[in-house]
């Protein structure tokens, strides 16, 4: 609580335009949350929100937090809405915030690291240990890779059935199975192979399983072909390639978010991802235009450093 008060007194101020609490207030609060030893649902919520820098005016971060945590607890951590970053700062909010931080201080210690979604850590997400971490992991993975998996499953289905049009439900079943498999099986190792190849093999196996089980008489080539079918994969379609590249860029953005200060990411997000004019962002955040330009320069360099890793390079190009 002292941390927040100090933060408000020293750096935090109301934005003249929106009267919303500025980033400089929340940044140290998030840092405190991250360093706090906090229970799983709260820890996940605290980690989750910085990744979801959605700014829904009129709804407070801390106003919503206790309710969300309670809902997560009561529904086995299923409720993870895209939410807000800024909050209206008043006595009521401060009290709620205090309750929230008190809860975190008195929680049982956990040695597990905060869940992070990045390409290099995808394999780790599967075995985060507790159920809550796992729930967040697969949902985040599905959000990032839903489109390429759909394109992948559709292409492979057509390939395995001689260009038959796949039923929508069948493709959804396959994608769901692949997501479960990805998180259940301890096979994917970024150092041993590419993610896209691993996902294609998994998807192909599930498609073949499904076709064999479904209508073996209609798919004689599959039953006759035996395991050879699981060994051959169709060429990647342009749609699938494009979709995977987009998912990879989204993963890169997630990775970037984990590697730079929150405020820097907000500026980068507003200017480069949302497309707001730099002058407007400077006015919104109450800083000089030069700060925005310098931040963008730094963040772009950091982004390129992360993208330069062999892992990203190999995944991006098929």
């Amino acid at each position, binding site marked *: 609580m002292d941390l927040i008060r100090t933060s408000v007194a020293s750096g935090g101020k109301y934005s003249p335009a929106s009267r919303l609490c500025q980033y400089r207030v929340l940044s140290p609060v998030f840092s405190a949350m991250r360093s706090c030893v906090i229970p799983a649902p709260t820890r996940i919520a605290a980690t989750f929100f910085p990744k979801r820098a959605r700014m829904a005016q009129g709804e407070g971060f801390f106003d919503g937090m206790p309710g969300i945590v309670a809902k997560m607890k009561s529904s086995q951590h299923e409720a993870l809405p895209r939410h807000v970053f800024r909050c209206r700062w008043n006595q009521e909010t401060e009290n709620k915030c205090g309750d929230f931080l008190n809860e975190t201080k008195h929680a049982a210690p956990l040695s597990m690291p905060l869940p992070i979604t990045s390409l290099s850590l995808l394999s780790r997400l599967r075995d985060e240990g507790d159920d809550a971490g796992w729930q967040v992991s697969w949902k985040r993975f599905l959000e990032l890779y839903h489109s390429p998996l759909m394109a992948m499953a559709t292409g492979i289905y057509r390939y395995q059935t001689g260009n038959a049009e796949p039923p929508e439900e069948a493709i959804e079943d396959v994608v769901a199975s692949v997501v479960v498999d990805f998180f259940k099986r301890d096979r994917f190792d970024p150092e041993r192979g590419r993610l896209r190849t691993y996902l294609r093999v998994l998807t192909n196996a599930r498609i073949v399983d499904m076709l064999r089980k479904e209508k073996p008489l209609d798919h004689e080539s599959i039953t006759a072909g035996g395991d050879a079918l699981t060994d051959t994969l169709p060429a990647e379609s342009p749609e699938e390639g494009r979709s995977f590249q987009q998912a990879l860029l989204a993963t890169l953005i997630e990775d970037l978010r984990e590697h730079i200060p929150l405020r820097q990411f907000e500026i980068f*997000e507003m200017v480069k*991802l949302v497309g707001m004019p730099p002058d407007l962002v400077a006015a919104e955040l109450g800083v000089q235009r030069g700060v925005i330009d310098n931040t963008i320069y730094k963040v772009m360099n950091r982004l390129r450093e992360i993208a330069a890793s062999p892992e990203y390079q190999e995944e991006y190009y098929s």
Partner: protein
Amino acid sequence: MKNPLFKKTEEQLTPREEAEITQELAEAYRQNEISEKQPGFQRIAEKVKLTISINTEAIPPPKNT
């Protein structure tokens, strides 16, 4: 063609390359933000949840010693 985002970091980006990167990142970001609204997403999420719950129920709870 090589994406300029993946150029060596010591190589300077041209304004055109930077604009290209920005456009691609913004598109990836936008697509990711609306992923939950894409066709089939919710149904797949439900199927994953269902599979997880079935698998979880199938595993007997640890015995208290």
